[in-house]
C-alpha cells in the first residue's frame, strides 16, 4: 500500500472501508488521511462508504427504533419487562387454573370411582353370598320380577355347622369339622361327632318347617 500524495498508489477498498468507519489503527488512519488529502479517487471512495453506512444506519434505525429507544430508556425497559413478566405469569395462572379445574374434577371422579370399586369389592368380599342372593331376589321382587318368596325353611350343612334358615334368620348349630352330616328326617338334618373333651358322641339336629 502507498499512502500520501496523488502519485502514490491507492489504498485498498477494505482499508478505505475501515477508514470510513474509523476502525483502522491510529498509524494507518494517519497515513490514509494524508493520502486522501491528495487523492480524489480515494476520497470519493471513502465518501461512498460513509454514505452507505449512514444509509444502513437510517434503515436500521427506522426498523428498530422502538427497540433502540427502549434500550436507551432503562426505566421504560424495566416497566416493559415487568409488564411482560406479569402478563406471562397471569397467562400461566390462567392456564394453571384451567388445568387445575380439570385435574380436580378428574381427581374427584377417580376418588368416587375408587370408593365405588372399594365398596363393591368390600361388599362381595365381606357379605356372605346367600345374603347377596337374598338382596338380589328381594330387589327383583320389588321390581316385580322373579317369584314370590317361598314360605318355609331351608336346611343346610356346612363344614362348621348345620343351619335352618327362614326369611333371612338363621340358626346354626356348630360342630367340629370331623362331624358327619346326614338327613335324619324329611325336614331334619343332623350332624354326629365325638366331643373331644368328654369323649361322648353328640348328635346335633336342626328342623325345617
Amino acid at each position: 500500500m502507498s499512502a500520501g500524495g496523488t502519485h502514490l498508489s491507492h489504498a485498498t477498498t477494505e482499508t478505505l472501508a475501515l477508514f470510513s468507519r474509523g476502525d483502522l489503527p491510529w498509524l494507518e488512519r494517519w497515513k490514509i488521511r494524508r493520502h486522501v488529502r491528495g487523492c480524489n479517487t480515494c476520497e470519493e471512495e471513502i465518501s461512498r462508504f460513509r454514505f452507505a453506512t449512514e444509509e444502513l444506519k437510517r434503515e436500521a434505525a427506522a426498523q428498530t427504533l422502538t427497540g433502540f429507544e427502549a434500550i436507551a430508556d432503562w426505566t421504560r425497559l424495566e416497566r416493559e419487562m415487568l409488564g411482560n413478566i406479569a402478563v406471562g405469569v397471569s397467562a400461566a395462572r390462567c392456564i394453571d387454573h384451567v388445568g387445575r379445574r380439570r385435574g380436580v374434577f378428574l381427581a374427584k371422579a377417580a376418588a368416587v370411582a375408587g370408593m365405588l370399586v372399594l365398596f363393591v369389592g368390600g361388599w362381595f368380599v365381606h357379605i356372605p353370598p346367600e345374603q347377596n342372593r337374598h338382596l338380589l331376589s328381594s330387589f327383583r321382587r320389588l321390581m316385580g320380577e322373579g317369584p314370590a318368596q317361598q314360605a318355609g325353611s331351608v336346611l343346610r350343612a356346612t363344614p362348621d355347622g348345620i343351619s335352618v334358615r327362614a326369611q333371612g334368620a338363621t340358626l346354626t348349630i356348630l360342630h367340629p369339622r370331623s362331624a358327619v352330616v346326614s338327613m335324619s328326617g324329611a325336614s331334619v338334618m343332623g350332624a354326629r361327632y365325638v366331643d373331644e373333651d368328654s369323649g361322648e358322641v353328640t348328635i346335633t339336629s336342626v328342623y325345617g318347617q
Partner: protein
Amino acid sequence: MGNSCGNSLAVAVISVAMLLARPAYSQGFSQIGTGQGQGNSWLTVEFPKDSPVLIVSSGLGSTTAHIQGASIALEIRTSLLLRNTGKKAIHGLTLRVDAGNFHPAAQGSVTMPSLDAQPGDTFPVRIDMELVRPFNVQRSEAPLVQVSLDCALFDDLTAYGPDKLGSKRALMVYELESRRDRHYLANLLNTGRVGELRRELDFGLGGSNLPQLAMELLRAPDRSNEAGHQHPMAVNVVAFSDSPIEAKGGTARVVGNDLEAPMVRVTNRSQRPVRSIEMGWIVRDENGRDFMAGSLPKKIVLNPVESAQMTEAGDVRFLQPGGRPLDIENLLAFVNSVEYGDGSLWIPSRADIDQATGDPVLRHALAASPEEQRLENLYRRHGMNALRIDLERTK
C-alpha cells in the same frame, strides 16, 4: 388406603347396626348365667321340677356378637353340666333348642345317644350355635335361646319328656344299636378275637368310615328352568334277611346333584302291624364312592303282608364338603329300623349286616352306631385296655 376405607366402611356399618340392634346389645354379656327356670336375655335352660336331669352349672364361653352383612350374628357357646337326679340310669338324652324369639322356624336339638349316667352322676353337654338375624326384624324381650328337655331314655327303655321332636324313637334305636354293638365287640374280646376286634374298630384309624357329605334340604324348589335335565333313577336295595319289612326297590328323580321324592316299595312280611319305618339312604357318586345320606323315619301303618310305597317329600341337594356338586350315580336304600304297633323296635342284627354285603366299607356304614363310634374313639385315644374296661360293664 384400602384398609382404611374398608375400616371406615365397617365402622359406619357397625355404628348403624349398633343403633338398630340396641335392644340386643343393651342386654349385653353381663347377664350371662343360666339356672333352672331362671332366664336371662340370651339363654334360658328350663327343666320341669320332676325332671330326671337338672342343671348343676352353666356357662357361656367365648360368646360373641358381630355384624355379618345386613344382619347381626350371635355366636353362643354354652357349656352345661347336668346331673342325673332320678333313680334310673340315663342312656340317652335330647335337649331341645328353641330360638323362637329369633325366628319361629329356628329350632334345633342336641342329643347325647351313648350316655351311661348313673343316678347322681354328672355329665357335660355343649351347645354351640350361631344366630343370624336381619336388623329390621322385631324381637320381643323373651330370651333368645331356650333350652329344654325333650326326652331322656333310661336303661330299661322307658323314657321321660314331652318328645315333641320324636326323640324317643331315635334314642331307642341308638340304645338298641348300642347294646348290639357292645355285645358284639365284647364277644370278640372275650373269645380272644382281638385281631377281628381291631379290624372292626378300624385299627383306630377311621379309614373305613364313609366320606363326609354336605347337603341342603329344600322345600319346593323352583324347577322351571331345569325340566329338561330331570331324569328318573332306580333305587337299589340292601336287603336284610330277618327284616320284618322287605324293601323292593324304587325310583327317584335326579336333577344334577338334587334328589327329589325318592320312593321305595315296602312289604310287611312279619305277623305284626308296623307303625313306622326308618329307611337308610346311601348315595354313590360317579367315582363309586358311597356317602351316607341319612336315615329317615316315616310313620306308615302297615299290617302283615301289606305293601305300600314310601315317598320322601322335599328335595335334597348333595354337595361334596368343599362345596362342589356331587353327581349322583346310584342310590341304595336299606331298612334301618322298624317300629311295631306296640312301640317295640326292630333293628338289623350283626348277622343281617354281615350277610347283606361283602363290601367292608358299606358294612361298616350299615353298622356304624353312635356307640361304636364312641368305642372307636376310646380305642384310638386310650388303647385296648380302656376299651376292655368299658366293655366289661356290658351285661
